[in-house]
């Protein structure tokens, strides 16, 4: 019999961005809220100067990330392969500990476009029959731009978003993104400083007729005090952002933007090293009664709660639903069930450009430093003629100048004197032209429970089935050609390319992106979505699942802004409706 803790009104699984936001919103509503975090506690003091500035520890050895022992995923590329567990993190780096990935993210805070939220509707209008792959399962999010806009605006104020406004209430603004959806308010703060590569990229992009603008950033350009009274210091361009905590308190994170305010509230509490293994359901399976977790001593504890918020990483949210029997697991053959359906990801690619005579000073940069253009997002160009749907943000970013990760030409040796010589020759002489692309959802890209591998508590691991598809190969080839045109303008002395083209498969060993999305997607049709448009489980009404898991497919922008906005959107509905009258917020019919 598990130890039992006193009941709370709401238990939050995971104390990263979504858990912190839900904590604020639900304590505001007067609920007694408890957050359970499986990792360590982490405060600003743990990130104080100069601790994070250690590439070996944080950049290479992943101190702030999940350990495979805690949460390995087994991976295969198609339904016929046997999945094997990760033994080392590679392609993606989910966070661990208070703050989650929100403590070590890069800090690009950008909205999707209105079209991205209604991609299925767009596809039906713009693509003739037979153009797109027939195993594609793209869907609308079920929530509109206008509904989310106030929540983007608020979350961006929480983060001190820095950038240049492109569309203010329908009026196009000079210097911003003319393709962005209409904003009700300008960016809270001006854009970050430019660097050499961003200026060169901007010039070349404009010459080719594109519309570059500064990467929208959650590394703040000025001192900022947010609506919670939380504060961020102006970014000092130290170059330790992605994979690092911010030593200057300049990157929006749960720590800098929310947690001190939340911890001040007497109706909030949190426990660390509390690893939730499953949500417990009432006998009829229609409501959750709380969660079971394993505490630091390895003891099982039952935490009763009237509401359960799954605010863990997208992958783990799906795993918890599967391990708890919430909703019907997805079956890719019968095409039934929804939990695990529409797992998606992000496709990258780029051209490394080396200039012997240009000093880029890559060590002086913020994580989000860069310029991008959005001319190739869905609806802004005719991709049907190239046989793919989706888009990419095209950018030259300079996220870091750390030495170990310095890109070198492909023919440079990877060790020994030759490596050192190449590092000396090329360090600081490199810039990258990048595409960050959308990834559609497909019948066989999915998540389920692994039939073989279990974690130390005997719970099945999550199995990921994922590979690049023809649509993403075509998209990559198209974007490569556009980036080549920019490189031709810039005339580097030497260049390398890296794209996921036809015949290439998903590689788990080297970093791709931590934009793992989908698997428990939102929508208005319970036969194709695991949670409704308020992020509420269709099947267990007192379980809400905010996170990237809600995306029915991925768009070209970074996910955090939408994740934050969706969480506030869900919280609003909970506060205004669910708490007064607990039950399904949408009917299944």
């Amino acid at each position: 019999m598990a130890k039992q803790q006193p009941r709370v009104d709401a238990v939050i699984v995971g104390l990263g961005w979504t858990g912190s936001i839900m904590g604020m919103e639900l304590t505001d509503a007067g609920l007694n809220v408890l957050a359970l975090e499986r990792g360590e506690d982490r405060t600003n003091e743990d990130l104080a100067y100069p601790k994070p500035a250690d590439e070996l520890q944080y950049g290479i050895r992943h101190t702030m990330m999940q350990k495979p022992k805690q949460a390995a995923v087994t991976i295969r590329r198609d339904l016929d392969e046997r999945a094997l567990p990760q033994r080392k993190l590679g392609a993606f780096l989910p966070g661990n500990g208070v703050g989650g990935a929100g403590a070590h993210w890069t800090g690009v805070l950008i909205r999707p476009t209105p079209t991205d939220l209604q991609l299925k509707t767009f596809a039906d209008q713009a693509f003739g029959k037979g153009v797109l792959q027939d195993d594609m399962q793209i869907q609308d999010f079920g929530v509109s731009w206008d509904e989310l806009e106030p929540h983007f605006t608020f979350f961006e104020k929480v983060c001190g978003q820095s950038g240049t406004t492109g569309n203010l209430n329908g009026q196009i603004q000079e210097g911003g993104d003319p393709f962005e959806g209409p904003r009700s308010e300008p960016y809270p703060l001006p854009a970050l400083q430019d660097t050499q590569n961003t200026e060169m990229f901007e010039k070349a992009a404009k010459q080719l007729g594109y519309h570059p603008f500064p990467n929208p950033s959650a590394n703040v350009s000025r001192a900022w005090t947010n609506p919670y009274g939380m504060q961020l210091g102006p970014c000092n361009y130290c170059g330790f952002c992605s994979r690092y905590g911010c030593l200057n308190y300049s990157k929006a994170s749960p720590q800098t933007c929310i947690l001190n305010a939340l911890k001040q509230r007497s109706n909030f509490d949190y426990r660390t090293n509390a690893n939730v293994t499953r949500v417990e359901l009432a006998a009829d399976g229609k409501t959750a009664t709380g969660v079971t977790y394993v505490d630091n001593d390895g003891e099982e504890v039952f935490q009763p709660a009237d509401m359960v918020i799954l605010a863990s990483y997208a992958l783990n949210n799906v795993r918890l639903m599967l391990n708890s029997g919430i909703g019907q697991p997805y079956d890719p053959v019968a095409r039934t069930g929804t939990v695990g359906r529409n797992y998606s990801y992000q496709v990258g690619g780029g051209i490394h450009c080396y200039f012997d005579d240009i000093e880029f000073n890559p060590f002086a940069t913020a994580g989000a430093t860069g310029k991008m253009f959005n001319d190739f997002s869905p609806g802004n160009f005719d991709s049907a003629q190239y046989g793919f749907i989706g888009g990419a943000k095209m950018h030259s970013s300079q996220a870091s100048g750390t030495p170990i990760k310095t890109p070198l030409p492909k023919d440079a040796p990877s060790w020994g004197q030759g490596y050192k010589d190449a590092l000396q020759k090329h360090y600081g002489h490199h810039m990258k032209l990048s595409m960050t692309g959308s990834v559609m959802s497909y019948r066989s890209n999915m998540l389920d429970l692994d039939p073989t591998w279990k974690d130390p508590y005997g719970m099945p691991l999550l199995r990921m089935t994922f590979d690049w598809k023809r649509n993403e190969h075509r998209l990559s080839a198209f974007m490569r050609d556009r980036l080549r045109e920019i490189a031709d303008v810039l005339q580097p002395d030497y260049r390398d390319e890296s794209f996921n083209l036809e015949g290439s498969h998903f590689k788990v060993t080297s970093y791709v992106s931590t934009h793992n999305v989908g698997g428990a997607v939102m929508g208005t049709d319970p036969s194709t979505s695991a949670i409704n448009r308020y992020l509420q489980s269709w099947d267990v009404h007192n379980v809400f699942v905010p996170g990237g898991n809600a995306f029915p497919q991925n768009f070209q922008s970074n996910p955090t802004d939408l994740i934050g906005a969706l969480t506030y959107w869900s919280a609003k509905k909970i506060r205004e409706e669910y708490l007064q009258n607990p039950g399904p917020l949408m009917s299944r019919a």
Partner: protein
Amino acid sequence: MTARHLIPLLAGSAFALAAPAFGATDDTLERGAYLARAGDCVACHTAPGGEAFAGGLPIESPFGIIYSTNITPDDEHGIGGYTEEEFAAALRDGERADGANLYPAMPYPSYANLTDDDVHALYVYFMQGVEPVAEQPPETDLGFPFNQRWGISAWNWLFADQPTFTPSASNPELTERGRYLVQGLGHCGSCHTPRGFAEQETALDDSDSDYLAGANLGEWWAPSLRGGSGGDGRGVEGWDTQAIVDYLKTGRNAHATVGGEMTSVIAHSTSHLTDKDLTGIAQYLKSLPANPAAEDAPSAQDRQRATNETEAHLTAAKNLSDGERLYLDNCAACHFNAGQGAERVFPPLNGNALANADNPSGLIHTILAGAKPPATPTIPAQLPMPGFAWRLSDDEVASLATFVRGAWGNDGDAVKAEQVADVRDELGDAPLNKAVDREGELNQTDGED
């Protein structure tokens, strides 16, 4: 437990208002609770990690350690047996119910100005709004002659003479409210007024220019609070009313972030006061003319010119002294080359009172141990300055502090390594900000362990 100087630093001790058991109206009780905040009673009368108001905090005085008493309404260990009259005598006259004198670590010379109404409200609060705690704090046991409490009577006769407050009709009402709070419950003079030969505050009210003129509080310089014009333009003199309100409410404003003992005062007392009372306090402080600057003090123009020079020199980063290099490597990221910091987030060092104080110990302390602003109700953010004790030697801290005290328009004297060593010794085992544990975290791998 570590003994602290006069005003103890009480990190993170929350105390909740218990529901009234009987009697008084909620209004009186609430007002009493508010006044107890204004008096910051909890700071001294609570031991680290102990129950609120149960006493036991060791307070370092020049005469030895004084332990604060239990002021919960417990009959045996606290003040449960006090009549309102006895309570008033303790507050205003420093007289215990048994007739013995309290040590003047208790700021009764300030509390003497309390009105009868406010004493009543405080009495109601302590009797009905505070949970009794049956704990006996350690007895104060000073050596001879200071263990002779009767001797304090003479001290009281000489130095404690403040009458009950009567507002002056010639000042705005709100300013007078500020004066009442500053001179009385706020007992600001305890730290900010210089002390005389018998450790008495040399002035208890604004009839004397010594009042709130700044004082050495152990290693810290408690700066002048005389905010009117007439001085060197630095410190509170250069703050407007709103800046003072912001500082007291949130521990930070455009000019400074709180450090040292004042951190606790803001956390437990001033951040809980109403904007109106804080405005009154600010208006009153601005009504006190600043004391004249030293004749050799640099003018505002001199300071601006020096600021430009330092900024240009740091930006060029050529021919740097050790102190300049250390500043660029360790400090400039937040405090910037012009020493201006970032508004309300990182305090400016240019013109900073602590950096310019005659006694550099507060600055040295901050460099070694770091600092963290309090989480206040309106600004809960806590962006800690890291300590550098683990990273910089005494010589390096001395070079750095010397640079900071002479950079921009600052005009503090140079700092010697021995002074740094003294502060380092005093910090002892205080939880300095340690380097990452290289034995631990660095050896972890994310492989097959």
